[in-house]
């Protein structure tokens, strides 16, 4: 066990800090959260800056256009960008963390050449069309149908909770290409397709979240034609292809956020001292415990990253352990923020009030806590299925 950085890593950190200090003051002002085109432009602009400076796709393999950085360098990158207050991945999330890595792992050379560079250069936005009205936790029961017709698939159905759908160019879409039967289990008839969001027959209807904004949407698909060349992986093999993506999602997607939570914790303490609530020992102790919590989550991240390095694979079910604890800790953080704010906790113009509302999605999105507990119990602890 070793937690010291090499000179090389410290040099990487120093170079990154210097660059951030130089470019961040020149960034345009943050767009209005309700202005999606502006948000898209802002997020893509930031990605382009990363690309020009050589920081895009740091953790992607070199043959996919990435930098092939070590996991530790990737952690340093996420730590430093967050610390410096750099923009989040935002609309680039699916491209950089789901669709891109999936294409890098499973795509043909042509597919990689077509889709990966625009993600890295900040030119195209992806969204994720997995969930359906009747297929959430039970994702494999999805029903959106794709029928082969010549060189195309013809797709009919609907998706829901699709984040960033309003501004996406592409959607990583899961469709059913073989009906479920006694011989065909539900997860053996699913195919992964890249859907151009401007294809005729695609309708996006934004959905309002409980925070009042439109973070996600319904996507209706009415006989949409998608070339078979847009299929990644074999027909009916989409479930396996998807699982590669989901383990990425649970393994490393929250690293920057843990750093952010530690920063927020410091802000909470200072706010509490300024408004006098710091004098309440029970509040102080709650903040102290959260400090322990986020320190441990940071260490667990390092542990998981080193483990994937050791086993040479993508992060696996260990990510479920992390996600369960982290999503809970984040909610506890903003509940504590409410205690710090006192009556202001009911004021939507306070940033932490909105953050408290968003934190409610953490135990639902990307696999609910109940589903994560099933995964931990069945796949790590080996308890029998079917509760």
């Amino acid at each position: 066990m070793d937690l010291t950085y090499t000179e090389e890593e410290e040099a990487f950190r120093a170079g990154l800090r210097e660059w951030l200090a130089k470019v961040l003051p020149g960034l345009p002002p943050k767009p209005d959260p309700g202005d999606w085109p502006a948000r898209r432009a802002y997020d893509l602009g930031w990605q382009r800056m990363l690309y020009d400076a050589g920081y895009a796709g740091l953790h992607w393999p070199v043959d996919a256009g990435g930098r092939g950085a070590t996991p530790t360098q990737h952690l340093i990158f996420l730590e430093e960008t967050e610390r410096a207050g750099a923009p989040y991945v935002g609309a680039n999330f699916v491209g950089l963390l789901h669709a891109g890595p999936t294409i890098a792992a499973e795509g043909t050379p042509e597919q990689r050449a077509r889709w990966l560079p625009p993600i890295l250069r900040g030119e195209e936005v992806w969204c994720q069309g997995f969930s359906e009205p009747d297929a959430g936790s039970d994702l494999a029961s999805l029903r959106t149908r794709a029928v082969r017709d010549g060189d195309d698939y013809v797709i009919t159905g609907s998706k829901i909770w699709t984040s960033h759908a309003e501004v996406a160019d592409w959607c990583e879409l899961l469709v059913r290409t073989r009906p479920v039967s006694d011989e065909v289990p539900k997860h053996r008839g699913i195919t992964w397709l890249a859907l151009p969001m401007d294809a005729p027959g695609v309708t996006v209807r934004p959905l309002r979240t409980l925070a009042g904004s439109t973070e996600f949407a319904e996507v209706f698909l009415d006989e949409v034609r998608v070339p078979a060349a847009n299929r990644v992986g074999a027909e009916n093999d989409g479930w396996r292809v998807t699982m590669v993506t989901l383990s990425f999602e649970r393994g490393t997607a929250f690293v920057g956020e843990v750093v952010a939570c530690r920063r927020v914790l410091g802000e909470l303490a200072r706010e509490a001292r300024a408004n006098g609530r710091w004098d309440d020992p029970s509040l102080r102790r709650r903040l102290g415990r959260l400090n322990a919590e986020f320190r441990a989550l940071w260490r667990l991240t390092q542990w998981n990253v080193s483990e994937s390095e050791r086993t040479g694979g993508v992060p696996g079910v260990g990510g479920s352990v992390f996600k369960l604890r982290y999503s809970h800790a984040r909610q506890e953080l903003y509940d504590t923020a409410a205690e710090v704010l006192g009556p202001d906790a009911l004021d939507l113009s306070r940033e932490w009030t909105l953050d408290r509302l968003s934190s409610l999605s953490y135990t639902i999105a990307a696999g609910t806590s109940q589903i994560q507990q099933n995964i931990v119990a069945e796949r790590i602890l080996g308890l029998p299925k079917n509760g």
Partner: protein
Amino acid sequence: MSAVYFQLSDDQRALQAGVRELLAGRFEREALRAAVDEAGVDGSGARLDRGLWRELGEAGFFALRLPEADGGVGLGLPEAVLAFEEAGRALLPGPLVATHLAAGTVPGAAEGQTVVTAVDGALVEWLDEADVVQGDASGAMPLHSVDPLTPLHRVHAVVPTTAGADNSLAGLLTAAEQLGGASRTCDMAVRYARDREQFGRPIGSFQAVKHLCAQMLVRTEVARAAVYAAAVTADPLDIAAARLLADEAAVRGARDCLQIHGGMGFTWEADVHMYLKRAWVRARRGGDAAAPEESLAAELLLPEKR
């Protein structure tokens, strides 16, 4: 390959396996139950197995961190933490932490010849069996200990626990024991959940049971990351954090394990209660959770170090 590598090395794995094997051979369930029978419900008859203590000494358990030039093993805190985790997992009794910390200063401690205990706030563990007592134990009165294998005395001249380096290390080694206990109760719960059947199927197929087990694992693994990191950095705040998380994992883990055992969990016969009682005893060491929580809170107000 980068230098940050937060996984056990091959040597560390071997050490972990070695200690586990030693304890499995020398302090298996029968020995544990025999020790409990001798101790009685309140620990009044508890005796230390001096032969086992010397064997631990010979195996290097106490001299682990002493330099080789001084007859020690020359290893570091991470190795000590792994050894103490195994001790916690096996529910090994005795003032292990105090004796380990006394190695090199109290003659015979390193070899397992001398049993050393230390006054900890208002309590002393294993006072009657110890050869050397650190701190002022005058006027110590025996308690009916909740844990049969940790006889306790109450001292009246309460000296506030100081925040010295040794106290911090004691906290870390205690956290390591708690981690071992948490990990063991998780294993016990999972095994019972697989074997025990009700309604014609293993109780581990019921989600209510499954989710208790999953939560036990999550708490254990979060505590593990915190404890191992604190062993590497030896930073007092990392240790404070490790303590809080390991105490939580051990106490709640033992309680959930008890719940999963049903009526059996409430018996003397099942081992579960001993894990819970030991976890309670360890969680009291160095005082309650207030001090580590306050120091972690205070740190939030410091300007960023990096």
